[in-house]
């Protein structure tokens, strides 16, 4: 049980770590600009500002980030499924109810 917990924790840390190391900095390929006070938009007046990042590299980095997110979700989902199966099996076997009904020791 402890071994599995350790494995889940290690997998979680690995995924989170790799996500931070590879995804986020890549998405920030553009250096953070100094906080500017200019209120003007980057586009001409009267024009809509598109939302998604325009540089191809930054766009690619966002898709990499998205792929990492889904990969992490798939792994965590698999681990959760194992835990759910185990919990359901324990419940079906009635271990939890048996523990409640177990006779208590002297002094109780």
């Amino acid at each position, binding site marked *: 049980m402890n071994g599995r917990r350790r494995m889940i924790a290690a997998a979680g840390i690995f995924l989170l770590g790799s996500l931070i190391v590879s995804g986020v900095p890549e998405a920030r390929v553009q250096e953070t600009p100094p906080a500017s006070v200019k209120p003007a938009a980057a586009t001409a007046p009267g024009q809509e500002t*598109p939302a998604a990042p325009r540089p191809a590299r930054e766009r690619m980095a966002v898709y990499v980030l998205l792929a990492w997110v889904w990969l992490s979700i798939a792994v965590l989902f698999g681990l959760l499924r194992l835990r759910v199966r185990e919990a359901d099996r324990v419940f079906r076997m009635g271990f939890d109810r048996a523990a409640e009904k177990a006779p208590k020791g002297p002094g109780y």
Partner: protein
Amino acid sequence: MNVLRAWIEERLGLRAVALFLEKKEVPRHKHTFLYYTGSSILLFLAIQTVTGVLLAFYYQPTLAGANASIVRIMTEMPLGWLVRSVHSWSATFMIAIVFVHLLGIAFTKAYRKPREATWVTGILLLGASLAFGFTGYLLPWDELSLAATKVGTDLPKALPVVGAWLTLVMRAGEDVTGDTLSRFFIFHVSVLPLAVLAFLAVHLFLVQRHGMSVPLEEERKGVKGPVLPFWPNFAFREAGVWLVLLGLLMTIAVLAAPGIGPQADLMAPAPEGIKPEWYFLFMFQMLKLFPARVLGLNGELVAVLIMMAGMAALLLLPFIDNRPFERKGKVITALAWTGLAYAIGMSIWSLL
């Protein structure tokens, strides 16, 4: 670690909560999936709070700064566009799941005795969520948001006696101006979150107090059906649902990030194609189609009164449908289905 755990336990007494969760049971039936909607709403509320705080660091609720600060968030802040997109899409997800949650409760008649107060607090939470959407729509301060807010705040004017005063209070003046923007911002980040916290605390307390309701047909059987322990069986399943929803949210936020229109001009005429958020579309379409005069009365007034009557009926539904097992209950269910079909039909019509 054990020392720390004991220290925390001595001060907070969390064992009682853990014991409660271990004993808590979730009924198993064909509508069990509806139980996941409540916690999913909380998940999106948490995302809204986090992304909202991040946006508030840079947003300026002034005439000159509102639109420009959002453009700055989207173009200059690292991943600012994504934070804004997640905020916007999680609002959509949250309200969509709120509707599913509400409809699930309405059609399984889970509001019946003794859960009337749970329903009432739920409707108040729905109202607060819609108010979040309405106030948040103006904050980008672009042409569309200004025009839509003008239409939205103009509606109460049709009401006799209090109508003009309500519009004045909402707009902080005769017209939509910079004062309206400040007022909407304060409501969006301060008044509404406090209201939601208060309603949510009561709602969650009542949900725990009465336990999860079973559908009418299950209750009719008169025997206790199969259950699932909340911890860990149900909680892990819920976590799986959260993960999938998070993935969907991230995907849509990346692929369909919302842009922002040109800065609003108070003197400019209303642009073409004004549309409110999707959850107000049916009201918008209804107002558009309503004749100018109905039985000698102002058509807009009649439309507003019908909408208000609908909202009052929704709020008081558990008291109106007080005999859900009988014929009256069936008639109310049929009416609810008709209302739902009408709202969906009107929304689709508005989009065409």
